């Protein structure tokens, strides 16, 4: 049995069935990405996998135990950042550090908080409240808050969605480094709508078909040698194959008739699903 295991998960919102028979298994220490179109149910899937929402059918287990609530030793970056507006960037991160390391000294917690914020390039903006930060800066605070607690499991919901290409690449490398350097294995379930990002970071990629009744395709393994960068991945043969595979899955399971037919004919640049504005 895998570390994180979803079996036959279904989820309806009222009469609308968003997820149908979703199966997902993630090994300990593995980095798994889920790509899919907007509104296909990715956030719903992640909130079920992390215990924030209950599935209507099916089972979710982590470490062999049925999941009841958000697991300890896990952290999440919400798509909407979910920072507390009455706290500064520093206080937002420190709140997580305090909760995760209750027996640390104040000085040590502050140090950890600062390090996390500096890692995402916010050393200068620590004293600002979320309302005084740009969207991308808020997202980075949310990332810092998740990374600061040394999680064993990371749930990421489009964690770099609001960032420019350069910052995005930097943080991707940070994330990759974090997953490798840590003494204990970090298991990551990341949602992204950027296929190249998924290829750079993941051990396996799953595509979620377009909703309603979205379901996961079979895993697409990525065996490119690490460390990978956006540049090395761009023209790699395997990466190109993966892009095509994902596009094929997304289009063949899509309700849009215009995209049926021969996805191979789509130019490779267009296959990287672009980030929404």
């Amino acid at each position: 049995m895998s570390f994180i295991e979803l079996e036959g998960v279904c989820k309806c919102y009222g009469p609308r069935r968003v997820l149908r028979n979703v199966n997902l298994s993630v090994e300990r220490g593995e980095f798994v990405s889920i790509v899919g179109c907007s509104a296909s149910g990715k956030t719903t899937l992640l909130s079920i996998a992390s215990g924030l929402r209950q599935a209507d059918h099916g089972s979710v287990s982590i470490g062999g135990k049925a999941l009841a609530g958000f697991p300890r030793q896990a952290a999440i970056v919400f798509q909407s950042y979910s920072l507390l507006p009455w706290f500064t960037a520093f206080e937002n991160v420190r709140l997580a550090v305090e909760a995760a390391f209750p027996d640390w000294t104040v000085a040590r917690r502050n140090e950890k908080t600062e390090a996390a914020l500096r890692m995402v390039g916010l050393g200068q903006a620590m004293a600002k409240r979320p309302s005084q930060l740009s969207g991308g800066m808020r997202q980075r605070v949310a990332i810092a808050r998740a990374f600061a607690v040394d999680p064993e499991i990371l749930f990421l919901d489009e964690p770099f969605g609001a960032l420019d290409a350069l910052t995005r690449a930097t943080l991707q490398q940070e994330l990759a480094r974090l997953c490798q350097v840590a003494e204990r294995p970090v298991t990551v379930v990341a949602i992204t709508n950027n296929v190249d990002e998924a290829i750079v970071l993941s051990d396996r990629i799953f595509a979620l078909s377009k909703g309603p009744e979205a379901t996961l395709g079979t895993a697409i393994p990525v065996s490119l040698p690490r460390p990978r960068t956006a540049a090395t991945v761009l023209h790699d043969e395997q990466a190109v194959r993966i892009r095509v595979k994902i596009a094929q899955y997304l289009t063949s399971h899509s309700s849009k008739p215009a995209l049926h037919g021969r996805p191979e004919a789509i130019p490779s640049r267009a296959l990287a699903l672009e980030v929404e504005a």
Partner: protein
Amino acid sequence: MKFRQALAGLLLPFAGILFVGLLWTFLSAKVSKDLPNPIKTWEESKLYVLKPLEKRGEMDQGILLLASYSLKRVAQGFVLGAIFAVPLGFLLGSSQLFFKAFDPTIQVLRPISPLAWLPLGLILFRQSEPAALFTIALCSMWPTVINTMHGVRAIPQDYRNVARVLQLSAWSTFTKVLFPATLPYMFTGFRLSLGIAWLVIVASEMLTGTPGVGGFLWQEYNSLVYSHILLCILTIGVVGFALDRLMGLAEMRIRAV
């Protein structure tokens, strides 16, 4: 253009005051001979206004001193009310069971006038001071209760999720998430509550005859010094306005976060 706006900003309120002053003069001249006109009111009250902190007797005191007694009582009653109102609001907002059990009772208690509560307070406490506080607290707490309740219900799921994800203890969840999220609503309640407390103070002082703006007003009515009644009315209005403005500023600051 700016100058004209500023001028209008000053002139128009002044024109409003002038209009009411003329109406007042007209009423005292034509309708009720007992009503002193503005000039007579000023002549007879200026001792109280020009020496606002002088204490000549139990009731015979400068207007600021009288107002300060009332304000102190209002502050005590208001704080007493808030001490009960905030937890009550939190319970009503977070527990459906509690809400169902107590909402009807609260809806019945809410519209009861201070004039009705005061005798009950006097029976309970046998002294005018605690009875007045009891009345102020009881009458003024409801807006805080209701607004706190709405505030708790309006806490976005996002914030609750943060508390769950960070595995905050119940106490941390309350102090770091729920309470700050509700604070703006609470302050709206506080402002309304303070307004009511100030309304209630006059009534309760009148009935109990304790020194303060309301007590003075009632005494002067009984001694037929009508100009002092007008002085009290103006004082009550101005102080009430100032209180509301102060709370408004506090509320703005809280909301700005």
